[in-house]
């Protein structure tokens, strides 16, 4: 087991060194930062490191989707509503210019103060949110605009109306649509990547993850409540299922880690946005020359290769 693990680690390290996947890796300061990350990857991430990422990913001052939109896109035009029944404020979607090209951007949005948080439903979308996301993805696909998604949700909303409006089906269909898109697509997990409500926006050609983001099948509290029968054991649960960026990279779930300013993205949102912008640009530049059907084929193959079995 241990040697297997080490082998996989070395393989990934080698791949990382040869391919410039990480944002801003061209700049020497960030090459250093990347080097530090790789060294940390070679060491074992401690349980404390993992919990620190959980706390930073949920930090109340962490930049949210619209904070990045404001800094990365020109001429942002937000599109509203699912054209069926509602506009879900937990997901924002729209068009804007990213470094000279029109792009579509979709992402979950959390609120900053109490009122705003309630309005955004803490970033937990209803099916209407996923349907809004889908119609904007279709628009992008028709016009050959690249799609950027920013993922930041504790999970899709578990409520009566959400179920009645078809939460499971909406999440399934959002995945399915993303598997059909014939445009370059890049996702970045910028905070909490909570379960199916997160992956529904992340079936993309490149999946990036900020250094202190988490991506997981279940929240640490939820896992603890089920397996330890005590939500207070969240720290233990997080240590067991390892939602941090380094483990996601090691398992091949994400393609690159986007560095954050020292101390976390909230300490310097402008710098965090610059680093994120670098990573997105680099990914788009790699993807834009690839023919549409080849993009789709590779994207499906990428996700179909995920899993470990004997």
């Amino acid at each position, binding site marked *: *087991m241990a040697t297997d693990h080490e082998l996989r680690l070395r393989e990934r390290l080698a791949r990382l060194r040869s391919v410039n996947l990480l944002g801003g890796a061209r700049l020497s300061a960030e090459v250093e930062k990347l080097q530090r990350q790789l060294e940390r990857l070679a060491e074992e991430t401690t349980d404390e490191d993992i919990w620190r990422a959980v706390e930073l990913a*949920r930090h109340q001052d962490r930049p949210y989707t619209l904070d990045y939109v404001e800094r990365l896109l020109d001429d942002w035009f937000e599109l509203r509503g699912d054209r069926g029944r509602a506009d879900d404020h937990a997901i924002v979607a729209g068009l804007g210019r990213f470094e000279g090209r029109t792009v579509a951007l979709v992402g979950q949005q959390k609120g900053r103060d109490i009122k705003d948080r309630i309005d955004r439903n*803490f970033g*937990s979308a209803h099916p209407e949110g996923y349907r809004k996301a889908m119609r904007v993805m279709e628009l992008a696909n028709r016009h050959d605009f690249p799609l950027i998604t920013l993922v930041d949700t*504790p*999970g*899709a909303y*578990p*409520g*009566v109306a*959400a*179920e*009645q409006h*078809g*939460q*499971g*089906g909406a*999440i*399934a269909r959002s*995945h*399915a649509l*993303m*598997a*059909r898109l014939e445009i370059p697509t890049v996702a970045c997990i910028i905070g909490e990547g*909570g*379960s*199916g*409500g*997160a*992956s*529904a926006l*992340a*079936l993309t050609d490149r999946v990036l993850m900020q250094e202190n983001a988490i*991506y*997981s*099948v*279940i*929240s640490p509290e*939820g*896992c603890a409540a*089920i*397996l*330890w029968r005590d*939500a207070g054991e969240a720290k233990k649960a997080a240590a*067991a*299922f*390892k*939602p941090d960026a380094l*483990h*996601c990279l090691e*398992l091949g*779930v994400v393609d690159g880690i986007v560095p954050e300013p020292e101390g976390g993205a909230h300490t310097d949102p402008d710098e965090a946005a610059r680093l994120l912008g670098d990573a997105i640009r680099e990914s788009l530049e790699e993807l834009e020359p690839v023919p549409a059907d080849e993009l789709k084929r590779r*994207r*499906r193959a990428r*996700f*179909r290769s*995920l*899993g*470990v*079995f004997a």
Partner: protein
Amino acid sequence: MSSSRIDVSIEHRDAPEPQGTKHPNTCPQCDSHYRDDELERTLWVCPHCGHHFPMKARARIASLVDEGSFVEEAADLRSEDPLGFFDLRPYTDRLAEAELKTGLGEAMVIGHATVDTTACEVSVMDFSFMGGSMGSVVGEKFSRACDSAAERGVPLVSVSASGGARMQEGILALMQLPKTVAAVEDLKDAGGALISVIAHPTTGGVLASFASLGDVVLAEPNALMSFAGPRVVQQTTREKLPDDFGRSESNYRFGHIDKVVPRSELRANVARLLRLLSKNGD
């Protein structure tokens, strides 16, 4: 975030109806008790009140396909323990115990068969194997079933029963959602069709991926099919839930499924759909 907003939507152990200390052969609805052979004759449906007991994968296959036509595929796939996961017990122990208890290598059985002489591929889940949870092997088996159906040019009949993604495989379990969806899209691009049959309970990650993507979606009576289970929804919203919350009849009313089909009529319905969906001349 207060701790009341726990997101356990993907993975919750919503056992097939609270059984308390009741014997598995005791009907949770009307308390009638049956011997194994009695339930076997009625396809594990209570003859008294019509309650649908959970059905094991092998029994389900036998009830659905022509006798002797089923050829199992990918039977030797086994889970690994990518995270070295340990909660109260190691994941590897839980896997071994599940295999001993169910006689299955994983929570899904796939293979090809004929139903009323029409060829098809089948994938059947078994809730008794770790709550039918979807880890790497379930994802891989389902994907292979899609490929096998595409190669043979036959429809895929999927029967799901699952609590959702398998926590013990962490993020890789979540990745089985995009993985199985990508496989369904490959199947559909190849001209294939997916008939999705939803058995009690199908929740979380399985409902939020391939089970909802059937060209036709059927469900058994009173099957719970919700993204989040009733307990989670109740904890989060503190609302009183409707009596039929998440049940197949309610999903039918809201337009999420095509038909609620009692188990005794499932085979006939699947056979009709297979004939309609198969390429002419088959």
